[in-house]
């Protein structure tokens, strides 16, 4: 069975940890659309959810930092952050799909790390909270290092996504594909709270128009200068765009939420 659902979504921890710091109308509007997207995910009746995600020092440290890592166990724990206001839970994994995907990677020139023990931080738990609220759909995490350089180029992420997409289209399972990451943000830095709205809008337009050249030509330095250290997470969105290249994209929401310190967006792709 093919990919039956695809979306990209922000995961700013403020969405749950300090929801009320944001203007109420803006927060309600965004989070309502996030939950609606979750209803669309459920309606697509997926057997598995492949999360193209990142992490923030939850599993990996400077002693070992994989460029790509695929979890292949039957459950994951998260969130690691006790302040996130999302209860710590056991998230079911898919120990059949994960090794299939890994084998296919190695057969096709991609060599990701694999892990039989991963914890999830807000990057994965927050989107699951809105999109898979009962944790009913088993998750396969595909983690991209967007935390500390050197990290995979946007071009490499697009190509990896393209491969994942073609492989999942051939899967016997119905797969929901979710990419998660921020747009412009400078988390925890002196510039924390800055949002580069023109960068965000241009990126979203490039994504929406399916402009492969535009998506793959972003350089590490350009992202860092324009969208901050947190902006590197757009690599997950670029990977998703590679996975569902021919699908039209719909901008479901864009809200530059200052107290959440990032441009928050939701993009749905339709087959």
């Amino acid at each position: 069975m093919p990919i039956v659902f695809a979306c990209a979504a922000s995961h700013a921890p403020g969405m749950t940890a300090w929801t009320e710091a944001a203007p109420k109308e803006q927060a309600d509007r965004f989070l309502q659309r996030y939950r609606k997207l979750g209803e669309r995910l459920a309606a697509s009746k997926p057997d598995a959810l492949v999360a193209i995600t990142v992490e923030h020092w939850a599993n990996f440290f400077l002693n070992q930092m994989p460029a790509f890592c695929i979890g292949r166990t039957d459950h994951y724990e998260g969130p690691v952050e006790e302040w996130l206001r999302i209860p710590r839970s056991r998230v079911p994994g898919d120990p059949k799909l994960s090794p299939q995907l890994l084998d296919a990677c190695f057969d096709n020139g991609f060599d990701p790390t694999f892990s039989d023990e991963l914890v999830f931080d807000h990057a994965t738990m927050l989107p699951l909270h809105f999109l898979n609220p009962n944790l009913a759909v088993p998750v396969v995490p595909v983690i991209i290092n967007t935390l500390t350089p050197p990290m995979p180029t946007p071009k490499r992420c697009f190509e990896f996504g393209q491969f994942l997409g073609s492989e999942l289209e051939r899967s016997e399972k119905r797969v929901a594909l979710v990419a998660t990451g921020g747009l412009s943000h400078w988390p925890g830095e002196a510039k924390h709270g800055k949002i580069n709205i023109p960068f965000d809008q241009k990126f979203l337009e490039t994504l929406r128009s399916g402009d492969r050249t535009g998506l793959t030509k972003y350089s590490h330095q350009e992202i860092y200068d324009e969208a901050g250290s947190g902006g590197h997470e757009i690599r997950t969105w670029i990977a998703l765009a590679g996975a569902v290249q021919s699908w039209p994209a719909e901008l479901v929401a864009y809200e530059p939420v200052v107290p959440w310190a990032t441009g928050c967006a939701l993009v749905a792709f339709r087959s």
Partner: protein
Amino acid sequence: MSLYQLQKLLYHVNRDPSHRERYRQDPVGFVSSYELTPEEESAVVKVDVRKLYALGVHSLLLRPFTLLHQVSNEDYAKALAGLE
């Protein structure tokens, strides 16, 4: 200067409930189990946001660590005011 060890300490406290509990029971004893300079030890024990930032701690280790100590967004921003 032992930034690697300093960041490793924060990584352990942030991600791992058992390390976190040991740190909370005895912060001074806990930090002494890492190879830190006296300046770094003191910055951790005092949760000196500005000092830890200036020492080069990654912002995504520092901010979660300060959230464990209930440092508000406003106080965090104040602590970093004027820095690059």
